[in-house]
């Protein structure tokens, strides 16, 4: 397999890259959609990195570039402000992969993204929306009530500063720490093992998200005596979301095109809800 040389960034280039992480994290929700959520935003965010790696125009590069673009179409969802960190880490991994395409499993990039997005959303949402926002606007409201324009201005400023710091330095940290850590792993010759372990974390987090973020239930019941959902719950809770996910997975394995699956998803919703089967 061909390898690529990824020249390291000089200071100016580094700064440019961190700003790019910053702005593209800011815009990461521009095409938020139910299937992939912020995936296109993530692709958009990492695109400059990929373009730089595979920019020499050779056919091999083109194929590798296509693969990389495709890779980042995978489901992604995370608090915008903490996404730049993920962009940073994923970028360092993309570069490492380009350098060692044989020993580096590119699937681990998505595994890392999945491991990070769950916890970073939890921490990020509760920090920015649960803490900062409430503090900022709690203060702002007090001013505004007295008719002072300072209210909204202060609130936005207080909202902005921590968000700025986390987003900018998060991206930087993700990229540099990622690089450092990956170099260490490569030198120690335990990249394979590390990627395997990362996949485990990723999958556990995805499993947990299936159990907590889909929430499809069934309203089927018979009077008060019988509720299908309750009966299912005695076997195991969140059985329906798991089933839906595995049905989708199975369709994918059966090489059903994603376009069709998309149609199936929407049509199922439009049919199964009025029939009173799921809600």
């Amino acid at each position, binding site marked *: 397999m061909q390898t690529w040389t990824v020249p390291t960034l000089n200071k100016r280039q580094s700064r440019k890259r961190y700003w790019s992480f910053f702005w593209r994290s800011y815009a990461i929700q521009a095409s938020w959609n139910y299937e992939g959520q912020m995936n296109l935003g993530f692709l958009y965010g990492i695109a400059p990195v990929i373009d730089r790696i595979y920019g020499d125009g050779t056919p091999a590069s083109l194929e590798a570039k296509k693969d990389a673009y495709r890779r980042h179409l995978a489901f992604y969802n995370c608090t915008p402000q903490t996404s730049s960190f993920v962009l940073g880490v994923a970028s360092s991994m993309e570069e490492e992969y380009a350098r060692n395409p044989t020993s580096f499993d590119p699937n681990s990039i998505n595994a890392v993204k999945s491991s990070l997005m769950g916890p970073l959303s*939890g921490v990020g949402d509760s920090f920015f929306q649960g803490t900062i926002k409430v503090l900022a606007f709690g203060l702002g409201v007090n001013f505004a009530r007295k008719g002072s324009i300072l209210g909204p201005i202060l609130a936005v400023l207080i909202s902005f500063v921590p968000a700025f710091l986390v987003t900018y330095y998060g991206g930087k940290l993700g990229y540099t720490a990622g690089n450092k850590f990956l170099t260490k792993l490569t030198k120690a010759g335990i990249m394979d093992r590390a990627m395997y372990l990362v996949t485990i974390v990723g999958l556990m987090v995805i499993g947990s998200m299936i159990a907590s973020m889909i929430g499809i239930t069934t309203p089927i019941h018979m009077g008060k005596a019988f509720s299908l959902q309750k009966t299912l719950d005695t076997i195991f809770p969140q059985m329906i979301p798991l089933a839906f996910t595995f049905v989708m997975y199975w369709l994918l394995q059966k090489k059903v095109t994603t376009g069709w699956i998309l149609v199936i998803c929407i049509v199922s919703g439009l049919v199964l809800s009025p029939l009173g089967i*799921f809600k």
Partner: protein
Amino acid sequence: MLVKAILLGLVGVLGNLDSRFLGRTNLEQPLVMGAFVGLVLGDLTKGLIVGASLELVFMGMANIGAAAPPDLVLGSVIATSFAILSHTNAQTALTIALPVAILGQMIGIVLRMFMSTFNRWAAADIDAGKFAKARRLHILWGLLLNVSMYFILIFLSIYFGTGVVKVVVKAIPTWLTNALTLASKILPAFGFALLMQTMLTKKTVVYLLIGFFITAYGNLSVIAVAIFAVLLVLVLNEILPKKNVATTTEQNDDDLEEL
């Protein structure tokens, strides 16, 4: 009225851009929207006061994951406008604005559902090597769709009055609302399946299930599972036979289908 409707539409666009383009700097919050509406309609003080009242009501609300609550930006822009234009207070105005917020919520769901097709188009563009076109789906068309929706909804509500909106909202049958909600829950399942595809093998499916069952039975949050996953992996790292792993990469395609 035309100018006002346009300007208010633009305020709504700004509110929308906040979370779509400006990293959620909280411009979308009622307090800020109220101030802008006040500026536009020439009564900043009232705008601030109405905005502040709405803010107090909604401050605790957070956007988490894929949930779709009634649309706050629409709600606060319209509510503040009506409070100023028809000299009522915040709460009354909010009741009048509610239909718009609900309509916005519904259209939003459909929009985000529709944008799922972008994934297909992006994939096609990538296959064809049209990378820029793929990127534009996100940064151009995604934005445009979002922004237009807000502009049009606010413009129409202000220009024709909320009466029309009310009629429209009433015309949407409940079953459709429910059906759309269900569909919007099924789609993430698809997203997860896509994601799993890149990682799942016969050997690793067990970890997906461990994560699932910990949350399903134990009600632990995703953060908790992530923490335990890292701890588990650190223990496994000590334990796993060294050889065992080297072959993983190659095995990746012997996926679950064989089961």
